[in-house]
């Protein structure tokens, strides 16, 4: 990955956060955090528990509104992002605790990922005929490609509530991919997985990035995964950014070792 990190880092900025501060009452979740995400890179956000990683993702996709700071997305300055704008403009995400429709099948969950791309009105959708049917077939084709890509053919018709956790995580990734995102935010995609599932997930993330050129920002606790996957790493600790560099450099950083790796290792 080192060769890739060199040329990606020189590329164009897709999203930048600038001086973000986020408080909940007296608690400061994020304190003056700035970093950028280049187009086409895999960007990791790491840090100890409570460092503000998930808050950062929530700021990026507009779920939280920071008290200070700005977000620039595709060169457009936004003082506040909101989830609808984020979704319509190609930012998709998965959640730390899987957030799928548990009673619906894998296939239906993936189809909901296409909801924003359905153009026919409710009337036509209800009729499920003519142009609405053509549209659905087209969306189904995209979803089937994702099913094939993620190797989840066997669970196409299974309600996701019945699936083991590792597979639910995979389905959630699938739903995010169904949006054909430009920027994919992954919140701890590997938690609760065994070694084989982790390896599969790493492969999928690399393939999404390599094959479709999707930019990825991910939060992850497994250091091995972070070091293998990412082009650049941001390290947060108590809401502050303490390091921002390529994985090899972050690993050597004294502040990072003190805050995080030293404890973990």
């Amino acid at each position, binding site marked *: 990955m080192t060769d890739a990190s060199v040329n990606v880092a020189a590329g164009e900025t897709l999203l930048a956060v600038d001086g973000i501060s986020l408080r909940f009452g007296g608690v400061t979740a994020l304190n003056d955090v700035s970093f950028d995400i280049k187009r086409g890179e895999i960007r990791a956000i790491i840090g100890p528990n409570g460092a503000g990683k998930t808050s950062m993702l929530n700021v990026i996709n507009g779920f939280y509104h920071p008290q200070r700071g700005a977000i620039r997305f595709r060169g457009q300055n936004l003082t506040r992002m909101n989830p609808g704008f984020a979704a319509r403009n190609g930012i998709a995400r998965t959640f730390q605790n899987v957030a799928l429709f548990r009673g619906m099948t894998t296939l239906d969950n993936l189809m909901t990922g296409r909801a924003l791309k359905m153009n026919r009105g409710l009337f036509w959708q209800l009729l499920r005929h003519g142009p609405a049917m053509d549209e659905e077939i087209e969306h*189904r*084709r995209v979803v*089937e*490609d994702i*099913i*094939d*890509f993620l*190797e989840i*053919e*066997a669970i*196409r*018709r299974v309600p996701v509530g019945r699936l083991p956790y590792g597979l639910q995580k995979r389905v959630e990734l699938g739903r995010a991919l169904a949006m054909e995102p430009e920027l994919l935010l992954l919140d701890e995609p590997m938690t609760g997985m065994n070694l084989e599932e982790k390896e599969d997930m790493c*492969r999928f993330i690399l*393939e999404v990035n*390599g*094959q479709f050129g999707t930019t990825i920002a991910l939060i992850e606790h497994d250091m091995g995964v972070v070091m293998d996957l990412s082009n650049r790493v941001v390290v947060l600790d108590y809401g502050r950014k303490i390091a921002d560099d390529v994985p090899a450099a972050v690993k050597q950083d004294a502040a990072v070792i003190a805050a995080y790796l030293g404890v973990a290792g």
Partner: protein
Amino acid sequence: MLEGDVADRDTFPKLLARNARRFGARPAFRHKDRGIWHSWSWAEVEREVRAYALGLSRLGLRRGDAFAILGNNRPKLYWSFAAAQWLGAVPVPLYADAIADEVGYVLAHAEARLAAVQDQEQVDKVISVSARVPRLGRLLYDEPRGLRDYDHTQLVSIDDVIADGRRALAEDPTLDAWLDAELAKGKGDDVCVILYTSGTTGRPKGVEIGSGRAIGAAVNSVAFDRLNERDEVLAYLPLAWAGDHYLTYAQSFVAGFCVSCPESPETVQENLREIGPTYYFGPPRVFETMLTATTVRIADASALKRALYRYFIGIARRYGERILNRERVPFWPRLQYAIGRLLVYEPLKNALGFSRVRVAYTAGEAIGPDLFSFYRSLGMNLKQFYGQTEAFILLTSQTDRDVRPDTVGPVIADVEVRISDDGEVLYKSASQFLGYLKDAERTAEAMTADGYVKTGDAGFFDAAGHLHIIDRAKDVGRLRNGALFAPKYIENKLKFFPNIREAVAFGDGQDFVTCFLNIDLTAVADWAERNGVTYGSYQELAGHDRVIELLAEHVRAVNRDLAAETATAAAQIRRFLVLHKELDADDGELTRTQKVRRRFIAERYAKLVDGLYGTSKTVDIATEVMFEDGRKGTISARVKIYDLASGEAPAELAAA
């Protein structure tokens, strides 16, 4: 009938050409992709295979070259066989789950010229061993996913090879005649395929099968079961296994029936239901897994459904097989059976994908009589055959309505079977192999002085002329007191319990019998859930005291069975243990066809065997395991030994 028609069809590509003329519009192959079943008619398959053969020859494949095929059941891999045979090259299929080292051995031994593989995983394996195969040219692949960043001077997709052949045909019409001439050059004594046997000892051997012989055998068996072009099969068995090559490839080319390939190995059960095959083969293990899954699901069903199931399965057990065999059954049970069909048997068969099955077979290992009878009692025409790769492959086969669970049926046409003085089954067959590739020594070892082939199995014929197989000839042993010890017989009895996935019995030259058990994760995990047993891993579950006690009950039941017969009474199990890991083909503990390699296991777990014949209650062991990518790791565990004599009335065992 077919016979006259195939008399001059001595190669599979010639049969393909015949099928394209005779059943041109009928489906030959189906494959589910992206959620949709795609199909190809015989005429389309012939066109594809012609173009494919030409494409292969443009990549340098020549008459006599070996063409390796590695992957799961996919139409283009089956076509790879036919395309290679068209040119007189020899297809060499490999097991999809073989590790790189095994792949390297076979590719090097067969001197593969080209290879067609399924996907990135297989491409990686072949590339990792390519230094051992100097003659290997381009590597063909079916699924492009993940191969974008590979060196494409080495790789080419099967689609591109076919397209290249098609383009060449369009540009130069004389090539059509050249292809026809190549087809005509094929002869009945050509080697049509080399099947590597998984082998319980030593390196795999390349079994050379003759083209005319293979077709002759398939013609016989197709007539035997009246298979025709309207039959349907689902191809899910390993391509490299002789059984799949026989049942899927050879028989479909002879009979003209349609072969459906599942979407992925995980969707086989679902695809089985969608296709509804009329002709089916499953090793005993598959039937066992299905029955276990059914039993587990019934246990979770409502009280009414459980009661219905119990009642009507009882009826089926008593009368089902007699009705299937068209014996005389009184009116009232017949009526009950008919109601059972409506309410239980047909819905159950439908859920398993067996609604339309006309002929089904099982073989490879002895099947538990109860398991076998269960499916037959539902009205499914399940039969057993006995055969060998070297015989390609049938030697005996049960006929409709003359089926007994403990035999493998009478000898089939064009085969002669003899039992040697020490009980080994020997045969001569019109379809037997030509020899082992580059191994005259082991070919000679496999034959008797008077030209019979040794099977390595011990067996005998009963009064009705049906063959009984007891065990591997070399595995039948004796206890120190001289009592007979047939390990497989004991293991099969144990394995009939859904909670026991695998059993390995020891006792040859010992004072008493002991065994290793493997839990069946599906069944035991389900039991654990319902009984409030918590666990974090396979190892923890397998070592749980209550699980061991559960299995001890099964062992006691087997002992009661063994005690009932004088011949086996001395072979009751005295001590056993539950293994901390699943026996696995990747670790060499099972063959690729999932048979236990007893000797290997006894050596690998020598410490545990010593423990079984010692006095200690636990044994510590560290085991090296191999992952599919070839990396190694270690599992260590403390394994508990269960002594049936100490907890039980010892008098019972002493008396035996």
